[in-house]
């Protein structure tokens, strides 16, 4: 049950927050989680909505399991969709929400009841069937939305920023929970997110989008280690852009600093600011050429070096990604 998009194009006339897609081809392998990652306005949600059939592409085709489904209406596409806003039916109990798709399909009553209780157990909300959605927390609601989407046994599961409205702690918990769920129930899944950590943690295949086009597609390691272009290098890992005649980027954790003892040269910099964030320390250092770069290092390493604000330090750029200038427009 793989999903494939070929040369998808969608333009929106006039104003609106919905981003355009300008020719995107991608593949989502069967039984895996694939992430559509990108900043806001990159067209990732529009792309997902085209896969679901909620948006009609201006050009291009969508294939599910090799079959062209571009002209098949939403309700016959047999996909599951989870919205950032949960989109639960407020006047129905949790159990009725989960049962909705099955009732529409006119399944026998006892089969529905059995399926619903199995799904509620699966999302660990077995006790909540008689509640109303408004009585649940955000994380619980999103799990119900997922159960509702899974009830009809969709061929593909589409998640549109599913954890976007939740606080960090719940988000991290739900991420791990989703991974375990996926091991148990390996439905082909497309996940839209702007959070690279989420994409890297949850998926084996990442499609990174930029302004309606694919910037790079590959495994998280490929994208992290071998960014294909300056956009990817800058987007992934919050990299610093360096001065020079080529586009060069270095990630904060790939920069080493130690105290300077009288040395001089291009690699000497001044510590302008330092912030301790839990297990690591973030420094802003001003380079000779006027650039400021961000450095991130583990707390213990930092403490060993005895660096303070205003110190002169030697900067060691360990892993710089360079690109010939002008090849890519960002």
């Amino acid at each position, binding site marked *: 049950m793989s999903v494939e998009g070929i040369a998808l194009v969608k333009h929106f006339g006039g104003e609106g927050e919905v981003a355009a897609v300008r020719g995107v081809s991608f593949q989502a392998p069967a039984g895996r989680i694939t992430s559509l990652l990108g900043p806001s306005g990159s067209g990732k949600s529009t792309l997902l909505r085209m896969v679901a059939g909620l948006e009609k592409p201006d050009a291009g085709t969508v294939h599910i399991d090799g079959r062209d489904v571009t002209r098949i209406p939403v309700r016959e596409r047999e996909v599951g969709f989870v919205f950032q806003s949960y*989109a639960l039916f407020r006047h129905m109990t949790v159990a009725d929400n989960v049962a909705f798709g099955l009732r529409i399909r006119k399944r026998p009553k006892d089969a529905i009841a059995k399926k619903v209780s199995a799904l509620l157990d699966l999302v660990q909300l077995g006790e909540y069937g008689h509640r109303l959605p408004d009585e649940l927390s955000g994380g619980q609601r999103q799990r119900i*939305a997922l159960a509702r989407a899974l009830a009809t046994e969709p061929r593909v599961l589409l998640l549109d920023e599913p954890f976007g409205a939740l606080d960090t702690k719940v988000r991290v918990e739900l991420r791990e929970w989703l991974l375990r769920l996926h091991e148990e129930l390996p439905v082909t899944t497309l996940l839209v997110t702007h959070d690279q950590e989420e994409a890297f943690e949850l998926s084996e295949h990442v499609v990174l989008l930029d302004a309606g086009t694919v910037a790079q597609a590959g495994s998280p390691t490929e994208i992290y280690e071998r960014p294909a272009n300056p956009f990817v290098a800058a987007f992934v890992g919050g990299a610093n852009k360096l001065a020079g005649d080529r586009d060069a980027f270095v990630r904060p954790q790939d920069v080493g600093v130690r105290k300077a003892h009288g040395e001089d040269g291009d690699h000497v910099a001044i510590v302008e600011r330092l912030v301790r964030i839990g297990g690591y320390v973030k420094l802003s250092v001003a380079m000779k050429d006027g650039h400021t770069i961000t450095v991130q290092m583990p707390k213990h390493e930092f403490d060993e070096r005895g660096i303070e604000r205003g110190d002169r330090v030697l900067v060691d750029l360990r892993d710089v990604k360079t690109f010939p200038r002008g090849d890519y427009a960002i």
Partner: protein
Amino acid sequence: MTPEAPPLTARRRATCRGVLPGFGLSLGYTLTYLGVLVLLPLGALVLRASSLGPAGILRAATEERALAAYGLSFGAALVAALVNALFGTLVAWVLIRYPFPGRKLVDAIVDLPFALPTAVAGIALTAVYAPTGWLGAPLAGLGIEVAFTRVGVVFALVFVGLPFVVRTVQPVLEALDPHVEEASAVLGATRLQTFRAVIFPELWPAMLTGFALAFARGVGEYGSVVFISGNMPHRTEIAPLLIVTKLEQYDYDGATAIATVMLGVSFLALLGINAAQRLARRART
């Protein structure tokens, strides 16, 4: 509860007090206000009627002409409120869902029946629906008479009641999350199924409120009806008109008797609608 809890709640109460004048003052003001403006005149009405004695009230209130008037007033108001609940919701739907040129204008036009002197509405409706009017003539050709019939009364009440439904349903429709409908479609529901199972349950408490307001307005409406109805006793005479007629004939006792019946029935009807709304709300929670 921890030992610190009581002072905390006490403090919260103290900060609450700062926002609005105290409970005693605001409640006292509310009761006095309602008493002077609403209850006092109504009390005077009942008192006046009671001077007739029970038998007298009964006789005045149940004469045949009065019974026909009640029937028309409440029946026409009911029909008009039902029509409005349906078409008012449709208007609200169109105004919220479809961006079209001139939407703001249409939105403003909806409120006109609120603002227009009802007599003006009555004259306008009569002119249009009279047997020689723009719409009256073709309708008469089809054998449908509107002006000077009970149908005309319903038309006038539909006109004055429309904004009530539109204005109560509109905000609810606006607040509906469009993703909820999309979720329903993805789950396999047709548009009709989505409307019935997902949208309508959210909408109908507001429709009921609008219906109640339109009904109440219809029962009390006078100005727009008297022109179009023709005011034939027993046939197209509404109860408020009958009251005015009696007053003009210095039959104050008869007028108050009918008014008391109107008051009682309206109160009961609104109570019933309120109970239905409470039931609807309880069904949701």
